[in-house]
């Protein structure tokens, strides 16, 4: 056996070995991937053309090869029915959501129920393409695959994992959809983090003193504002708001409309192709006006011929109404957080549209301070995610970044009369666990149905249905005699898991989860197998590589644990673990996925008690150590 290296529990046994980890900003309009090279600052990874931004667009082409990014965007006009864009807006959303809510009118009118088994319980939105009905999860997986491939070729090997950012207001279904997309793409998710938090991390604000932070995010088609509270390194989202149909594209449209008015023509006179040309020119003019005081504009075609000049001042008058709307959104969120503008310690700008000087000016005026703009506003979220990813895989052991989050929306269960009883309230620190006891209603009842919802309102109809759980195998007893302890676990990503046990008999009830607006695990597996991108052989090769990586990291971790805490085991235990190690090391050299998997499970099983003893020892030492500190160094009141 190789020489063992010593490390603390949870830390990498080989601190000098660089692990490939990335941060991914999976955006509505554009997506990016970033990384932190050893000893350097974080930077975005560009594609072969040198572009950092990957348009979040997927085209399902006739030759069954999916185009992603700019080539897909180029097809969006010629072949709109087989091209998907802005699909982030319908992540974790059902066809019913879209039909009952006007703000979803941007979803394509041909949206259908995309659940593979057509059961109403998992009615995810999908749209028809020549590749079949495609859900937002599958389209997002294409984008993630593209970014992962870009990162793998830049970093020279398979990724250890990725931190993916999501909007702060994403509920459990939307977060789960994002994780499902990563799973489909073969990307290991280290953590989902909130976009505004990632932006704050990119600015190093996690190291700052306690304060309130406003994150103003104006993208191409969406506006989000978040109010964060930083207290002792913990980011808490106090309020979020915005407008899902307001962005920099509206600035372009305002310029185009102005040109049309000057030329005294309508968009219809101009025709669609010339109008698109005008929009592109307007966009270029908008960007030029960030640097110049005036730009020339011209429109020609279909008998129209006009040329003129737009000054920065005129442009600002054109967009002031739109900018005003974003400021109104900021004020609403401030009020929601019970704050006034002067309470805000830092204002962070995110999104390409925050490059417009007028936007910065007005934001500065509202908050009474200059907003932060030094980090590229298109990249800032991905860069923050990369810093977190680098920390999580253990590359950077110096920075003490720890992102503690809170649950964005309350979790509850349906009770009699269509009401929701909250089990875990919003803003509860996560991870967290809550137990709730239930009993049976009828004699001999052996099953129980639970409906889990997310939201702040009191009625079931006003909250979002997350999942229905069916508990089976409850021992038959008289009504009210069974004590069924249901445990709700929310992990560090804000995602829920439910388990149940009858406390009198200790019988664990089995739980069948039916996600309300998501994919069941079997559906994901089916999608993986059906994926056009993976030939069967590829899939097997990938599975083998994944199992080997898992075997390697388990071996590293167990050997480090043994080196540190062998004294917690007796001779026979050591021997059993050693032989499981030898077995796994041997299996990992062979090409049998199943035997590696089995050997991983056996080593895991053999080290279960060891892990618990190590943890107990560590906690005991931590508590005792603190007790001694407390005596030696009494904590001051201030």
């Amino acid at each position, binding site marked *: 056996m190789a020489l063992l290296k010593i490390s603390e*529990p*949870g*830390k*990498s*046994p080989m601190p000098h070995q660089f692990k490939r980890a990335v941060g991914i900003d999976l955006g509505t309009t554009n997506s990016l991937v970033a990384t932190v090279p050893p000893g350097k600052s974080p930077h975005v990874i560009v594609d072969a053309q040198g572009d950092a931004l990957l348009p979040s667009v997927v085209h399902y082409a006739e030759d069954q090869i999916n185009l992603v990014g700019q080539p897909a965007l180029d097809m969006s006009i010629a072949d709109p029915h087989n091209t998907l864009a802005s699909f982030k807006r319908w992540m974790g959303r059902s066809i019913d959501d879209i039909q009952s809510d006007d703000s979803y009118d941007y979803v394509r009118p041909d949206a259908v129920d995309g659940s593979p088994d057509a059961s109403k319980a998992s009615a995810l939105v999908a749209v028809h393409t020549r590749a079949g009905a495609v859900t937002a999860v599958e389209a997002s997986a294409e984008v993630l695959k593209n970014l992962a491939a870009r990162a793998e070729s830049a970093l020279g090997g398979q990724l250890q*994992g990725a931190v993916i950012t999501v909007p702060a207001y994403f509920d459990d279904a939307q977060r789960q959809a994002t994780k499902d997309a990563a799973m489909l793409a073969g990307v290991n998710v*280290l*953590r989902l983090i909130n976009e505004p938090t990632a932006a704050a991390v990119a600015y190093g604000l996690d190291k700052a003193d306690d304060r309130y932070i406003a994150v103003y995010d104006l993208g191409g088609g969406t506006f989000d504002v978040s109010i964060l509270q930083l207290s*002792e*390194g*913990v980011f808490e989202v106090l309020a979020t708001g915005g407008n899902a149909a307001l962005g920099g594209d509206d600035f372009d449209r305002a310029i185009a409309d102005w040109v049309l008015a000057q030329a005294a023509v309508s968009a219809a006179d101009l025709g669609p192709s010339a109008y698109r040309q005008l929009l592109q020119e307007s966009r270029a003019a908008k960007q030029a006006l960030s640097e110049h005081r005036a730009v020339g504009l011209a429109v020609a075609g279909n008998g129209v011929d006009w040329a003129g000049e737009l000054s920065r001042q005129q442009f600002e008058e054109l967009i002031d109404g739109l900018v005003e709307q974003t400021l109104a959104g900021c004020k609403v969120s401030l009020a929601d957080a019970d704050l006034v503008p002067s309470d805000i310690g830092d204002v962070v700008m995110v999104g390409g549209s925050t490059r417009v000087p007028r936007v910065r000016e007005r934001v500065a005026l509202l908050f009474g301070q200059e907003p932060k703009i030094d980090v590229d506003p298109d990249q800032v979220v991905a860069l923050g995610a990369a810093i977190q990813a680098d*920390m*999580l*895989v*253990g590359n950077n052991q110096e920075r*003490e970044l*720890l*992102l*503690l989050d809170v649950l964005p929306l309350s979790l509850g269960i349906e009770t009699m009369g269509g009401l929701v009883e909250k089990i875990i309230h919003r803003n*509860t*620190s*996560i*991870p*967290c*666990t809550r137990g709730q006891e239930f009993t049976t209603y009828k004699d001999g009842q052996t099953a129980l149905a639970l409906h889990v919802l997310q939201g702040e309102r009191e009625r079931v109809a006003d909250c979002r249905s997350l999942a229905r759980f069916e508990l089976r195998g409850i021992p038959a007893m008289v009504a009210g005699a069974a004590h069924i302890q249901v445990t709700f*676990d929310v*992990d*560090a990503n804000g995602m829920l898991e439910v388990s149940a046990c009858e406390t009198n008999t200790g019988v664990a009830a089995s739980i069948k989860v039916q996600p309300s607006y998501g994919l069941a695990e079997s559906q994901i597996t089916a999608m993986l197998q059906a994926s056009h991108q993976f030939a069967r052989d590829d899939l097997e090769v990938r599975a083998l590589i994944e199992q080997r990586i898992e075997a390697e*990291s*388990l071996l*590293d*971790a*167990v050997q480090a*644990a043994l080196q540190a805490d062998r004294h917690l085991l007796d001779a026979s235990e050591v021997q059993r673990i050693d032989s499981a190690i030898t077995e796994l090391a041997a299996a990992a050299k062979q090409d049998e996925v199943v035997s590696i998997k089995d050997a991983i499970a056996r080593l*895991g099983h053999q*080290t*279960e*008690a060891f*892990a*618990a003893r*190590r*943890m*107990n020892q*560590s*906690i005991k030492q*931590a*508590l005792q150590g*603190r*007790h001694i500190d*407390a005596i030696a160094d009494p*904590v001051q*009141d201030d």
Partner: protein
Amino acid sequence: MSAPIAVNIESNYFTLMGLPQRFEVDLKVLKKNSRELQRKYHPDRFCNATPQEQRLAAQFSAQINTAVSVLGNPVQRAMHLLALQGLVLDAQNYTEKDSAFLFEQMELRESLEESRDERDAKTLKALLSDVANSFRVAQQDFSATEIGQGQTPDLPLLDSQALAALVSKMRFFEKLNEEVSVALKAL
């Protein structure tokens, strides 16, 4: 299947959080000590550990968060102190017997409803300050008991009804305090 192995977590939240076992707690120390433990045991610190260790860390991290929320809330903290003495209150089935307090409850509720309907901010503000004050007094009363002081009284001598009444009082004022705040905000 063997039973799932769990860490032997300290079930006394005061010990866990390095605080003396009594009703008065220093919230700053509570926060500081919980941050210190999270810095060590948050699941993010265990990305490279074995799956078993990851699961145990997540469990312990959740336990720390629970301890903070229990000790940070006066009603829950009082109930935890009682539970540590073996007194588990059945909050749902507690019936108030103090008729004077029952009458006071009714009057306060009526006052809230009236001023809410009339959008009377001045009365609501006065009510809020009254309720907050009563909440404080109820907490002081509990704190003054043997259990509130962190002593370990003889169980048979404990007047569990009186303790339950105190907790119930705290619970009432806590809830009303929140309702008045919500009503004020809605104006």
